[in-house]
């Protein structure tokens, strides 16, 4: 019988205590390993350096982080809008308009980005065919747009949407989980919608208890993308022009605000709309002139009496009883806010000088041009802010995620120390109970050192075995976390990879366990053979 078998036998003899001790080590290691994996993978996801573009243009009022999370990861709400005119400026191939900057030396490629609607919980993004490597006429470009370095979108099925059509390209994950497929021309549009070949957009991203406000236009699915393993797999892409063809998008913001406050816009005196809007939290300067006109045209000023009137009094005057729910259902469908030209292209009623975008993704010619863009939008052009998504995410990770995972790591180290104390107590108790057995081993010729080693090996074994199981469970936890992350932001993590930090950690746990075993081992070492042989 060798000593390894001897140790295993002793452990099996006290199976429950041994397993409980192994379990406590397992818990600590599993927690630490899961944290290590999440830390590592979060860093991989968020501190990515291989963005295919280097500038995001977005509204200057939001934070760079909000803009980046919203545009790249489809998290958080859009911070606001920027004028479409800006997109025309930076992509203009001819001389700039008078008073506008020249971006021809800076911008290599740019794609528009517009959000606001959803389909069954998945975000609809308005963009242009350029995102998928095609020009506005639908022909393949020479150097396709890259979402990551050297990676451009590939079609698993179908083709790109037309710039001015109600057509859509959907991400691989959306197609798979919502059972969407290409539009079947043999069926009616209604049948296609029922079977997953077409969809209608829901306004905004309604909560679970909100009544979804579904827009009238129906998009045909003409393309399904190959997986990119980014958040874009969870997005439905439509031509941004088609989003301006939705009636509610014209004055949606004002409509909604007034509806929420039960205010009838027709009762607000002319010239005071701005004041009312401001009191409802809407910046009147952001509201396009055409919409203001729509609200104020019908009611000419009623006289000087309203001029000095208090805003709250105005709101009181304009407040009506909330519309009954039944009435709301009878509302009927929105009127069309567009017409089609002879080629079937969408011509939105909304004039293009009032079009807006959530963001513009820009690929500059190089790092100097990138810095130049950032400077331009910081100092000269106040229509938007320019941020570098890689910089933003690195900073975010360093200031927030990095420190919180450090805290978690410290906690997990403490858990391990607690587990080590558990090993110490467990083996110490067993040594106290086994003093006679130890004396017998000594009587059979085992030296003090041998007894010491046997106990330490037992402790090391508990540490190693608990550590290995903890490694497995930790990776299991990370796999669960990966699934959760995937459902949250459409990115999964490499939970399977065991890196050298984990092996180092396992080694450390085994060493710590052995040291913990040293205390009872020393007690066993000091066990008096004569006394314990006679006793009992």
């Amino acid at each position, binding site marked *: 019988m060798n000593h390894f078998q001897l140790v295993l036998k002793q452990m099996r003899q006290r199976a429950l205590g041994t397993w409980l001790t192994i379990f406590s080590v397992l818990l600590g290691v599993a927690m630490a390993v899961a944290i290590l994996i999440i830390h590592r993978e979060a860093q991989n996801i968020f501190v990515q350096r291989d963005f295919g573009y280097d500038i995001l243009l977005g509204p200057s009022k939001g934070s760079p982080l909000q803009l980046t999370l919203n545009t790249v990861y489809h998290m958080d709400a859009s911070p606001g809008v920027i004028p479409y005119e800006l997109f025309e400026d930076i992509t203009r191939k001819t001389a700039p308009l008078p008073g506008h900057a020249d971006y021809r030396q800076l911008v290599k490629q740019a794609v528009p980005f517009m959000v606001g609607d959803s389909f069954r919980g998945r975000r609809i993004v308005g963009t242009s065919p350029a995102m998928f490597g095609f020009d506005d006429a639908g022909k393949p470009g020479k150097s396709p747009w890259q979402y990551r370095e050297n990676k451009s979108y590939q079609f698993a099925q179908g083709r790109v949407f037309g710039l001015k059509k109600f057509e859509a390209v959907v991400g691989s994950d959306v197609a798979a989980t919502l059972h969407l497929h290409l539009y079947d021309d043999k069926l009616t549009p209604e049948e296609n919608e029922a079977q997953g070949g077409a969809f209608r957009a829901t306004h905004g991203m309604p909560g679970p208890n909100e009544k979804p406000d579904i827009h009238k236009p129906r998009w045909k699915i003409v393309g399904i993308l190959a997986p990119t393993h980014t958040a874009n797999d969870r997005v439905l892409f439509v031509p941004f022009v088609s989003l301006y063809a939705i009636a509610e998008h014209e004055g949606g913001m004002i409509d909604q605000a007034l509806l929420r406050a039960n205010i009838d816009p027709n009762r607000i005196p002319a010239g005071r709309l701005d004041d009312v809007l401001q009191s409802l939290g809407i910046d009147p300067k952001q509201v396009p002139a055409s919409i203001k006109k729509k609200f104020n045209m019908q009611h000419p000023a009623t006289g000087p009496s309203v001029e000095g009137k208090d805003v709250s009094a105005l709101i009181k005057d304009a407040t009506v009883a909330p519309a009954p729910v039944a009435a709301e259902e009878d509302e009927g469908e929105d009127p069309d806010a567009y017409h089609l030209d002879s080629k079937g292209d969408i011509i939105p009623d909304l004039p293009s000088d009032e079009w807006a975008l959530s963001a513009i993704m820009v690929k500059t010619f190089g790092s100097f041009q990138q810095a130049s863009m950032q400077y331009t939008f910081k100092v000269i052009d106040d229509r938007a802010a320019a941020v570098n998504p890689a910089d933003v995410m690195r900073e975010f990770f360093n200031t927030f995620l990095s420190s919180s995972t450090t805290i978690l790591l410290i906690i997990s180290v403490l858990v391990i120390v607690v587990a080590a104390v558990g090993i110490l107590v467990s083996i110490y108790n067993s040594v106290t109970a086994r003093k006679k057995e130890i004396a*017998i081993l000594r009587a059979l010729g085992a030296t003090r050192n041998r007894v010491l080693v046997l106990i330490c090996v037992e402790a090391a074994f508990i540490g190693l075995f608990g550590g290995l199981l903890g490694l497995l469970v930790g990776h299991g936890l990370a796999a669960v976390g990966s699934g959760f992350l995937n459902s949250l932001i459409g990115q999964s993590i490499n939970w399977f990879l065991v890196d050298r930090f984990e092996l180092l950690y396992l080694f450390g746990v085994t060493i710590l366990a052995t040291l913990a075993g040293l205390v009872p081992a020393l007690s066993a070492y000091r066990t008096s*053979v004569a006394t314990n042989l006679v006793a009992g």
Partner: protein
Amino acid sequence: MDLIELKKRYVGPDGSVVPVIDISRFTLAAGEQVALVGSSGSGKTTLLHMIAGILTPDSGRILYGDAAATATVPNTAAAAGNTLDYRSAPAAIPPGVVDLCRLSEADRDVFRGANIGYIFQTHHLLPGFTALENVLLGMSFTGRSPDPAWAKHLLQEVGLGERLHYKPDKLSVGQQQRVAVARALANRPKLVLADEPTGALDPASAQQVLELIRKLCTEVNASLLIVSHDPHITQQLPRVVDLKELNKASK
């Protein structure tokens, strides 16, 4: 085995010094079988522990080796008329003779494992191990590779050939003690120390166990020193030593 000027005292809780063992000379020849008798508290177990190297004497020598060689070692302390610390005594020890008192504790442990078989009053088997494993365990600390065939032979000899894989709690008290006997003989020791080996057994089992011990000691040519207060046991042995007479401390 030869004991020379062996002394051991205990210091009581009140600081008083109680001499326990004071033996000027005691010799056990190779293969000799001796019964050691003595009243309770006369130091029998202490003496066995010292002989086995579990306890160290305050002074004296415990010599193992050829009887002719150990006989040449003089009774130093008696000659000098005082108690001589064995550690400071110059080695007048012939080659081939081991003085247990001059070995380190670890060396004593190894020496005991390889050369001395110990049988206790209760079996002292390890509960998690089968009969065979307990015997093999006896072979584990000698530095030699275990000999399963010999272990099985011993268990057959003690009548447990059919119960090699029984754990102690599945064996009767007599059977447990027979496993302990087999374990004590596992390393073909030069000396077997038996401390009341039949004390917990009924007379029939006691007789059986005694016969087994004697038979196996003869088979491997081991000396046997058996402590007992049972006259039925002691009268069967060729030589009986009364510790009261041997031990000056008990007078």
